[in-house]
């Protein structure tokens, strides 16, 4: 079985600091994988390497068998690698409907049409509406994104990524900063994602990790510390020591 997303000896050095140290992992289609690790473990750097924000010092990244190591971000998206951001990256002046229609139009190579009005392609608009409905955003469809509730913005962040119909979705702390009362909406949406999407969850929140992840990689000091099924990781005394220990104390 070929891996959907694979890294081979990935390494990133900023001068003398090695932020990503020889990371190799391989995810099968439909994986529910979590990437965890204490602060400074190199989670963000790894995400930036995967998405093309940073170029690795050495190593390769394969997406569905294609070598994407040297590709710019937008081309990786085209090949099926989408992400959400830890801090919302949305269009404050556009409505959720406009945002999603644009994302779908981009996927369908229809985003450069400059003569016919936006909204003219009924199939795209219908798909956008269905997605907004699915994510519970239909009630804010026509409001400026800047004015909608934070929890809804987090959902829109996921919706934009889903609109591209990705093969792999990197969720970077999807529930970060969301008030407790709105969290369940985000958890429900993630739980309902189709198995055709391979999920990589970059998370701090252990409750969220153990609810969704079937497999977990623990990063420490830029390198893979352990990886394995979620239940094993939860029992692993070494992981508890470097990471979960502090969490348990915090809770």
């Amino acid at each position, binding site marked *: 079985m070929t891996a959907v997303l694979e890294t081979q000896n990935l390494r990133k050095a900023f001068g003398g600091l090695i932020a990503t140290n020889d990371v190799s992992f391989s995810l099968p289609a439909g994986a529910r994988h979590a990437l965890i690790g204490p602060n400074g473990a190199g989670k963000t750097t790894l995400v930036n390497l995967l998405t093309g924000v940073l170029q690795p010092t050495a190593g390769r990244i394969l997406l569905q068998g294609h070598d994407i190591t040297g590709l710019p971000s937008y081309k990786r*998206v085209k090949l099926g690698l989408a992400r959400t951001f830890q801090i919302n990256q949305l269009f404050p002046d556009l409505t959720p409907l406009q945002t999603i229609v644009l994302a779908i139009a981009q996927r369908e190579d229809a985003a450069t049409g400059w003569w016919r009005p936006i909204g003219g392609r009924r199939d795209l608009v219908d798909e956008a509406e269905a997605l907004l409905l699915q994510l519970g955003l239909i009630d804010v469809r026509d409001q400026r994104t800047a004015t909608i509730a934070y929890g809804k913005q987090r959902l829109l962040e996921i919706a934009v990524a889903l609109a591209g119909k990705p093969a792999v979705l990197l969720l970077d702390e999807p529930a970060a900063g969301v008030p407790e009362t709105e969290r369940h909406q985000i958890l429900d949406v993630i739980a309902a994602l189709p198995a055709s999407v391979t999920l990589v969850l970059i998370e701090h929140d252990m409750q969220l990790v153990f609810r969704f992840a079937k497999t977990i990689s623990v990063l420490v000091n830029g390198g893979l510390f352990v990886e394995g099924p979620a239940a094993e990781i939860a029992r692993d005394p070494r992981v508890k020591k470097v990471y979960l220990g502090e969490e348990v104390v915090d809770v």
Partner: protein
Amino acid sequence: MSALLAYFKPDTSTASGTLLAPARWRPLEILFWLFALSLFWLAPSKVLLLNEIAILALFALSLDLILGYAGIVSLGHAAFFGLGAYVAGLLGKHGLHDPIAGLLIAGAVAALLGFVTSFLVLRGTDLTKLMVTLGVALILRELANKFSNITGGADGLTGVTMGPVLGLFEFDIFGKTAYAYSLAVLFILFYIARRLVNSPYGLLLRAIKGNALRTGAMGIPTDLRLVTIYTIAAAYAGIAGALLAQTTQFVSLDVLEFHRSADVMLVLVLGGSGQLWGAVIGAIAFKFMYDWLADITPQYWLFWVGLVLVLTVLFGRGGLIGFYQTGRDWLARRFKTGGAQ
């Protein structure tokens, strides 16, 4: 009749209706163009001023496409305006007297400069953009000054002769043909820009302006899309400059001066950037303000312009169009609540 009324009252309850609504022409817009056309007969003594307004509006429209929609700041937009003016002037002087052909060539040459310089402009921060655009305009101005054997240098380019528009309408000393010609060009390019800003590409530009990190993460090659609009805007500015050269049959270094780049920015801020009508309304307001203030306080008119600019930026961020929209929405709300009680 009911079909016509239905056109002006788009159904905003459905998703596609909401998206399509801004593309519908509003009655006020149509009235505006009819009124502008009627001035040809109603105010024949003002056509010279009206011609200048139409040209300034087109220039501001060009800046609006990059600044208002795509978020690219520029302090050197006169580079394209001036280049278009010199190209059209030189063509008129050296044998190509057909105005439309001259206009198209001037637009194409300006577009070429826009395309080439876009790669310099699109790297870096806003400050870099301001400096690069300013630098390009300064270089062009000095080149025009230096090659005075071609451009006429500080004395200006004289001897520009223009044939009749479409082979039918000779330019006259009162500027009547000039105004009709500029207004027609402005209308056509306004129409095209209006299609563009309401299209998927127009939305894409606004998205890039809003958050380029996100458009990249959506799979959009952000820089490539900005190159396109910068090139289009350069063509628009070049055509505006060409109109000035053709209708005045004279080109001076003034078309490349810094104050032109600054004025057009002022026009856009005054009218309201990010709205096509902001460029048009801003041009009208600016020219009339200039005309009126220069009349009463010839020496201090810039003082008043400065004051208006500061007040607009501080209190009416959407410019005059913003004031209009705020007022309209306020009235609509008042009317609605009043009706419900």
